[in-house]
């Protein structure tokens, strides 16, 4: 699973509460991703087995709205997602070793 920025955002949003069930608009709000980016990411995560989806069990007539589709991380998604985000975090940390990676004058 290639961890692009949108993928990382969605995984991070889902990992914020791994047991919570999230729907599309909710995830758009949490990640600030447009719908055209979010849904392909959710599909990729489902294909990778990180996310599972299911339809809300309601009576649309009684509720006055159609059933929504909910997403949540699978156990594999929780483990692999945490690991991938930790790796990403480590890879993007500025190097703080003294004398290395610090800005130096060009002259």
């Amino acid at each position, binding site marked *: *699973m*290639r961890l692009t920025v949108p993928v990382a955002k969605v995984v991070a949003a889902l990992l914020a509460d791994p047991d919570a069930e999230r*729907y*599309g*608009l909710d995830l*758009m709000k949490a990640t600030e991703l*447009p*719908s*055209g*980016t979010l*849904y*392909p990411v959710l*599909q*990729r995560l*489902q*294909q990778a087995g990180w996310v599972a989806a299911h339809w809300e069990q309601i009576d649309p007539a009684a509720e006055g*709205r*159609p*059933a*929504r*589709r909910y997403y949540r991380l699978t156990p594999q998604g929780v483990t692999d997602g945490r690991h991938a985000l930790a790796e990403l975090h480590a890879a993007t940390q500025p190097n703080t070793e003294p004398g290395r990676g610090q800005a130096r004058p060009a002259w």
Partner: protein
Amino acid sequence: MVTRLCAVLLRVAARRWPAAIRADLHREWQAELHVLAERGRTAPMLAYAASLALSRPAADPVLDRSTMTGPVLRTAAFLLLAPLAATVAAGLGLWLMSLTVNGSLLHSRPDLAFYLQEITATVFVAFFAVLLALLAARLARWGVPAGPLPLAVGLVVPCGITVALFIATFMQSDKLWRVLPELVLWSAGMVGVLWLAARAAALGHLRLAWCVGLMGAFVVADLGVVFTVLNHTPAHYVVIEGGFEPGVSRAWAVLWLPLLYLGPLVGIGPSQEDMWYVGDLVDLSPYLYLAFTPYLLAYAFATARRRSPAAAASEPVSGPAAAGR
């Protein structure tokens, strides 16, 4: 008004997703849109639907794009190299004809060699063309699944370019300008034929696809030959200063291509002088069309059937052998 516009945008967006998940996604988006509509949030509704409709085409968004690099490179390599292979196949066929008919038969039975020259070349070129077609049907399994029109354009355009480059490199310079209109006509015609035949193959009508493809390819090649000859030849011998311009009888124009393939075996049609003149004018193009056509059709059909859910459902085990049937 906004709701209707959003509904149209969602339908457009849904069509760009793979058929297997299209209905679920559309239902999901409608549910989310309903929530926004209930809150009276028209701008977010439009943004939601427009983003889905305008986002990167979901030709196969379920696949990681990195996994598509291989098929794209393989397809590009095939599309560029196959016309070269077909040109080599045509050359090989003509060389073998020259070896067998002109090399040995000409000394022992010159009368027979005269009759067998064209048909021997045709048989050899067709043999190599069929081998290439079998290979193409197998390689289509590893290519990018494309729609009938992009597939047809992607297959035919490299053929036209290869022939033009071949003529420009290895033959007289005036030959290219003579054959270029014919090449354009052949390319446009073959795009149409492949598009139509690939659509038939995608619907599972493989026999019909082969009929349409082979007959269409023949008609297009025949028209190309007629076009070149008529463009460069008067109807009759014309006396000019210092000699005369040859002419050909146009009554048998539709038979020029079949007779170029079969030779004077048939015993009917235009005079042998006319056929020599036609052969000199069109030169190698009929054999190149013969070398290109089988692999173009085989690759187009195998790809079209791979992409078609109907064909996939009817054939649980799909493969090049099945595609080539």
